[in-house]
């Protein structure tokens, strides 16, 4: 009897252990692996691949002593050479000048630095090295007869004249004198300057001439709300250009524009919902290849059949993957393909259309596995006026989309927009268990002129309402836990975060701002008074401090520290002209006085950028700790 009982009891314990074992086993499967922070934010190994014009060599940037330098290898991946030896700065810009040499300049804020180097890494030649000047390359995509056209502020430090530089002799020849208002020059296929954009800060004027020896004539002048962006010159008609414009349109379209008549002659491509944002032109074929626009994701419409078939072939070879032609040789026989999805930063491939052969060059971030990343879903909701607002929702892996802690990230700008694709920051936050919500509130770019303008002077009001409506929608859908919503952003996004905390103290559990505009007066004051036209534009977009002083005061978070109840995270660049560090100090002091927990990240002496990995690690470590503390637990 006793023995039996004992056995029975043991059996029970065994059963319990088994069930427990099963449970823990399951649990292991349901929780996504916490990927080390460094894996998200490390520098890419190899990047910026460029093919030589003859398609025989591939150049790329790769860190050497922690700085990006140029390397070259042949297309079969053999014979790797390091061309540059920069140890203090990254290579900021480089391109192939011809089949045997490359141009590059180091990454620097100011100063005109341009060097050439031959593809074997010998003969580094200094073309410019002047701390006081600045340089703007004009026709680097289509260097004709070894002569580079560039802009240089040599004569007058405030304006860029156009020069022609002979790359072999180094001889510099003045082509065009800037009358003072031209900010962009355009060359035609032969390297002649035939078009320019002039601006008084608000109004842009397109200047054009049929021949390089005749004077420029103004074609069309637009207020800053209307844009014309020249793409290329038409091949057959000397007065015709291809341009992306929203003149007399709400949404930008690719058009054929007659400069002698000053008006659009033919619409080449337009989209009903969104702006056309770029177009690709082949100097070799002398025709438009494709046109790009962005709905819920970036898409291309091919105007060239050959290109279209290449794209279709790539789709077959790389299914469920977005592909971009990053570079190609002049003949179009070899292409560098960059891939990406929402769950991976992707890879670089070398593709030969004739052989339909695809060779992987490098994985951009091999430490991130696509299957461990989270899906970025396009979503849309109606705001309180009933208009559709679009956005994206990234849900953490292997979690029911119910009652999740949510971080809403208003984008910067506010003229920018959120795009579908891989983002280290968002994937990092999603990996930490947060649902990430992004939205293209009114005032965002890409959805037409009207949508953009509707955000003017509405930064703290209607724009903020869209964000609030988005959050309410998420809560109503049951996805967001109404007690665990955080708001976070950089620049304008930071402004929205702080504004949201002050305006809706009960909606957000915490908020984080990186260089968030805390005072709109200060933001406006960053424009010096001698840029009068620019100032006018700012006044129109943000508010006039003379007439809209009440609105600006109402919108600026610095005046409303007393309304904030939730914990705040602030990262501040001490040299930011738009956000004064002493105002942020004051703001933080005010919050701390009211016992509101503030995580304050500021480097008084240096600029706080996230460009180097060390700062990125520090920043995201602290950000993670902040959200973990205030959002993870109910």
């Amino acid at each position, binding site marked *: 009897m006793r023995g039996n009982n004992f056995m029975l009891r043991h059996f029970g314990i065994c059963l319990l252990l088994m069930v427990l074992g099963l449970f823990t086993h399951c649990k292991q499967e349901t929780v996504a692996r916490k990927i080390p922070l460094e894996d998200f934010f490390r520098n890419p190994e190899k990047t910026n691949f460029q093919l030589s014009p003859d398609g025989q060599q591939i150049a790329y940037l790769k860190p050497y002593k922690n700085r990006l330098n140029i390397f070259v290898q042949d297309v079969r991946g053999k014979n790797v050479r390091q061309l540059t030896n920069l140890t203090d700065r990254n290579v900021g810009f480089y391109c192939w000048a011809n089949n045997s040499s490359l141009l590059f300049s180091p990454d620097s804020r100011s100063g005109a630095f341009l060097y050439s180097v031959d593809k074997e890494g010998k003969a580094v030649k200094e073309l410019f090295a002047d701390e006081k000047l600045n340089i703007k390359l004009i026709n680097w995509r289509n260097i004709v007869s070894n002569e580079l056209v560039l802009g240089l502020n040599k004569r007058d430090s405030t304006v860029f004249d156009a020069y022609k530089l002979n790359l072999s002799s180094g001889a510099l020849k003045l082509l065009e004198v800037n009358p003072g208002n031209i900010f962009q020059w355009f060359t035609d296929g032969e390297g002649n300057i035939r078009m320019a954009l002039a601006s008084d800060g608000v109004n842009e004027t397109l200047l054009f001439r049929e021949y390089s020896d005749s004077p420029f004539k103004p074609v069309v002048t637009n207020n800053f709300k209307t844009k014309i962006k020249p793409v290329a010159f038409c091949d057959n008609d000397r007065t015709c250009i291809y341009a992306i414009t929203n003149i007399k349109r709400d949404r930008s379209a690719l058009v054929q524009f007659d400069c002698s008549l000053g008006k659009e002659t033919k619409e080449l491509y337009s989209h009903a919902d969104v702006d056309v944002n770029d177009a690709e032109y082949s100097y070799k074929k002398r025709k438009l290849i494709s046109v790009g626009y962005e709905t819920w994701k970036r898409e291309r419409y091919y105007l060239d059949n050959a290109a279209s078939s290449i794209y279709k072939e790539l789709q077959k070879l790389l299914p469920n993957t977005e592909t971009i032609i990053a570079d190609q040789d002049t003949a179009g026989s070899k292409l560098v393909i960059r891939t990406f999805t929402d769950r991976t930063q992707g890879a670089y491939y070398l593709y030969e259309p004739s052989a339909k052969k695809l060779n992987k060059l490098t994985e951009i971030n091999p430490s991130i596995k696509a299957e461990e990343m989270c899906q970025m879903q396009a979503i849309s909701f109606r705001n309180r006026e009933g208009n559709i607002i679009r956005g994206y929702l990234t849900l953490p892996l292997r979690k029911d989309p119910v009652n999740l802690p949510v971080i809403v990230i208003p984008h910067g700008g506010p003229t920018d927009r959120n795009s579908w694709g891989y983002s280290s920051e968002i994937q990092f936050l999603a990996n930490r268990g947060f649902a990430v919500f992004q939205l293209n509130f009114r005032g965002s770019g890409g959805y037409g002129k009207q949508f953009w303008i509707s955000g003017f002077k509405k930064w703290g009001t209607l724009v903020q309402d869209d964000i609030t409506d988005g959050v309410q929608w998420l809560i109503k859908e049951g996805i967001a836990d109404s007690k665990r919503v955080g708001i976070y952003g950089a620049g304008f996004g930071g402004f929205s975060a702080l504004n949201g905390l002050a305006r809706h103290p009960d909606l957000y559990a915490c908020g984080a701002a990186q260089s968030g505009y805390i*005072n709109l*007066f*200060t933001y406006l004051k960053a424009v*010096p*008074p001698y840029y009068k036209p620019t100032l006018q534009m700012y006044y129109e977009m943000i508010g006039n401090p003379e007439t809209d002083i*009440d609105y*600006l005061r109402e919108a600026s978070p610095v005046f409303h520290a007393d309304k904030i109840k939730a914990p705040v995270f602030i990262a501040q660049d001490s040299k930011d002209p738009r956000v*004064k560090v002493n*105002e942020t100090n004051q703001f933080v002091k*005010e919050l701390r006085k009211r016992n509101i927990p503030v995580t304050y990240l500021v480097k008084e002496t240096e600029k706080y950028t996230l460009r180097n990995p060390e700062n990125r690690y520090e920043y995201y470590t602290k950000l993670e700790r902040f959200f973990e503390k205030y959002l993870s637990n109910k």
Partner: protein
Amino acid sequence: MIIRKFSGKKNFVLNVVFLVLIAASLVAALTIAYNFTSRYVYDEFEKKKTEVVDETIRPYNDFFQNKIPEISLYQGYLDPSSALKFSKTVLKQFPFVSRVIFYDTEVSNHKTEYAFRVNNLTIAPKSIAQFYRKQPDDSVLLYNINSGGRPIKYINEFNRVSVKLAAFLQSFELSKSTLSDESLGTFYNVTNNRVTFMNIPREEEIKAFKQLMDDNLKKSPVYQQDVLSFLLDPAKLRIKNIHPHFYQKIAIIPLTADIIDIEPEQVSTEFPLTGAFSSYKLHFTSSSDFLSDEILRRFFPLAVAILMVYGVILTIGFLIYRNLNINNKLFKLQYDFVNNLTHEFKTPVSVIKIAGNNIRRATQLTDRERLHYGKILDEEADKLNDLMNKLLSFTQIENQAIKVKRENINLEVFVQNMVDTYNIKYKDFQMEYTIRNVEHFYTDPVLLGSLFQNLMDNAYKYSLPGKKELVIDIAHEKTDIVFRFSDKGIGIPKDEMKNIFKKFYRIQSEYNQQGSVGLGLAFCKELVNFMEGDIAVRSRLGQGSEFTITLPYNYAG
């Protein structure tokens, strides 16, 4: 006897010394405590004034440190109408601000009217406005560059601020200097009852101003600055007397004023204010009576505490004294007991000794003599034996060493036997007994017999000859059986009643000179207690006593 007397005297002296010492130290403690409290109150009177000053000046500090810097947040964009809104919040929040003068300022290199110029730098008011409480609308604008007005009256303060800015720009070096925290003082002008502030320009603007000043440039753009001057009224500063127990009256008076205390009974102190109010001070006064009240208020709990401590000490002292006294009495009783016992033993022993001597000395004993001496020896030996038995059983009972042997007793037989025995013993002892509602009692006959013996002995012993009578009444009442022994003896004085059951206690009287050790009633009490019963006595002096023994009846059956 000598020892006892001596110790009694000593006790008395000791007690008196103890009480005197206690009283003296109590008075000393109270005096020290009072003096201490008094000094504390006067010290605090001096010390606490800074707290009052801090509290009083706090709104000003808040105004200076938090409200004024807010002007900088507007980045120079204020105009008369928005400055009015800002000023309204100031006037509402800070009652000591009586008037705000606003200078909408332009910095450029233009030549304008009422401008402050250094080299090429022009600092000029575009408009001047003033704001105060209950203001008529038309009094706001004092000067406008377009519509005119005479700003002369107000331009002085503006120029002072401009001078400070110019001086700062003079020493500013374009290539090196940055706007340090120390240089921020440039933008404040704090004078008597006035704070003037110019919004702190950005570093780029400072550099631009410097260039405007030094270089002869073409017509420059106009930079916006705001200057706000706040006129303060110290009389409106709300005095916050956070220590009303110390300060009867607090007033703000000019620093130079000197108030002579009119009443000599007045205590006063002062403390200067800071910032724009630095030419004023707070004057604190209190009458000495007021402070005395405060001293008493603070002294009272202290005194109560001291008294409580002394109360505790006295209580403990009394308890110790009482304990000693009881021990002393016990000692006296034991002493008496030994004395009595010795007497008790002495009589039979000396009788035995005499009898023995007589027997030894006699050469021949007649039969009568032999019988006589034999009887004497036998009787005296019995007496000794009886005495020793009593002592022994008493100790046994006290140590609970007796074993009870209960049996069913027929009370009629038991009492009749006892009466018969005593009739033989004392021929003149008249005894009667009644037994009601009870026949048998289940108990130890020896113990019950002891009780009867003791009480009957006492009845006989303490009765005058001819009045030696005893009535025994036995009754069954409820759950108890009650034995009453009533005699017509001498009785017990009232003040002795509580002592008669004590060990070795004997009433001092002429009737008990012999044959008593003072154990009888104490023994009875012990026995009754042992039998879970009770013994009580009622008595009237000269008329008789009644002892009542109540024993539980539930052993029966």
